[in-house]
């Protein structure tokens, strides 16, 4: 939720219409651990953390924009492409340098978004663009409708969602919640304490470690599920599919749940048990294997 400062901005500083300018290059002092709010309808938004206590915006404003609002107090900086009329066609290419400890909130409709070297919480939303978040925010929340979401970050918490795009998480760890409808979902590298992965049709790949006592839940309707776990993982498995096949290289083969149903279920433990692994699909095939 936005803070009162932003509300104050709305009330006190309505943008003055300025002459349209193409190239921009502006800076503004900011706290090293404040919040930077970036709003640009389309084009590209590149956010890079740096060690200065200021926000610097460079790049080009799209045709139809009448200015860039760079305002706020030091705790909270707003970077916003100002426009009248339907803004979706205004393609601006912005590079925004922010203090590395900042929380960054990015909202767009059609821009591709990339964030790197930011240590605070990164929140990014777009409808039609890709989102890429690199090292090493403490928390990532990224949502797209028709674009892919790629997060490569150590530790922390990751929430990554797309409807049609692919969600790819590499080298993360800690907690993850990720979902797609149709896009593939892949989590590779890192060690997780909690993971919940959901798709309807997209296939799921989880090739990562599980912490002691971790929980991993995977649910799809039609999507295939592949889990690749390191040797020596101590876990209790509960795996079900109704019409898909189960291939288990970690333990015993699956059996029919009862004579009256096609439901196949598989429960077993490895390494004496510990972490909880639950997989459910309707018709997706399930593969359980060792991570090379």
């Amino acid at each position, binding site marked *: 939720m936005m803070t009162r400062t932003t509300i104050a901005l709305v009330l006190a500083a309505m943008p003055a219409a300025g002459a349209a300018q193409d190239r921009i290059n502006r800076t503004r002092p900011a706290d090293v651990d404040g919040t930077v709010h970036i709003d640009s309808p389309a084009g590209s938004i590149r956010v890079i953390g740096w060690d200065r206590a200021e926000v610097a915006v460079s790049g080009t404003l799209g045709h139809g924009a009448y200015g860039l609002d760079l305002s706020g107090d030091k705790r909270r900086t707003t970077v916003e492409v100002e426009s009248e009329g339907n803004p979706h066609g205004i393609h601006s290419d912005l590079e925004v340098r922010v203090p590395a400890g900042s929380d960054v909130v990015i909202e767009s409709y059609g821009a591709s978004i990339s964030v790197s070297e930011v240590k605070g919480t990164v929140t990014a939303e777009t409808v039609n663009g890709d989102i890429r978040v690199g090292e090493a925010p403490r928390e990532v929340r990224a949502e797209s409708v028709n674009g892919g979401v790629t997060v490569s970050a150590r530790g922390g918490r990751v929430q990554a969602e797309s*409807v049609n795009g692919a969600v790819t998480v590499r080298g993360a760890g800690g907690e993850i919640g990720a979902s797609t409808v149709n896009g593939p979902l892949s989590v590779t590298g890192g060690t997780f304490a909690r993971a*919940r992965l959901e798709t309807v049709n997209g296939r799921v790949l989880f090739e990562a470690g599980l912490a002691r006592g971790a929980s991993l839940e995977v649910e799809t309707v039609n999507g295939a599920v592949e889990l690749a776990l390191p040797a020596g993982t101590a876990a209790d498995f*509960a795996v079900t599919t109704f019409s898909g096949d189960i291939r288990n290289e970690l333990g015993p083969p699956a059996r029919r749940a009862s004579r009256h149903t096609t439901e196949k279920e598989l429960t077993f433990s490895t390494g004496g048990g510990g972490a909880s692994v639950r997989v459910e699909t309707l018709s997706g095939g399930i593969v359980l294997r060792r991570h090379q």
Partner: protein
Amino acid sequence: MTCEAVRERLDDYLDGELGEAEFQDIELHLASCAACREEERGRRAVVALAAALPRRREPPRDLWPAIAGEIASPRRFAALSFVDARPAARWTAGLAAAAAVVLAVWVASREAGPGLETAGPAPRGVARPAAAGGDLDAFAEAEREYQRATGELMALLDARRAALSPGTSAAIDENLAVIDRALAEIRAAREHDPASARLGRLLVTTHQKKIATLRRVLKLTT
């Protein structure tokens, strides 16, 4: 006091925010200046009009179904705390529609098997249905609730179609169709295996996914 100074303080005068001395000064000026009296009357009229505006206005359509749909589906970032919750608690916490609660209890009461905890306490006032026939009724009612909620959200989405690019609109439709096909497949599987608690749960979570997807699309495209 000059007319200019008086007009600058006129709003404070009307709002009773002046000290006694200033208040008296203004009164005095107004008594002797027709133009400022006219100004004062005009401003007082605006204030009175605003104060007389109806405090209530009914929205053009009932917002409740959409609100119920939204609070029934899991919170955005709470997907993580979701992982915390025991499966049964997930149902009772996450499903808000009354029929869905009945369903939750129905599902929970049948939940069995390793790896899945037993159900939490039933919500107050909701009896655990015992007979299979009654369960199916409750289930059908729950599905109707979800369909009502998704119908409302679809109407909201359709109202925004014009603002979406054709590509985005097509991608959204394709994904909703994927979910609908999945729902149909789960229903078909349930006809063969009506007693399966897992299929019931899958049907519910897939309905929830449709609601969550519609919500996400609506939120991001607004």
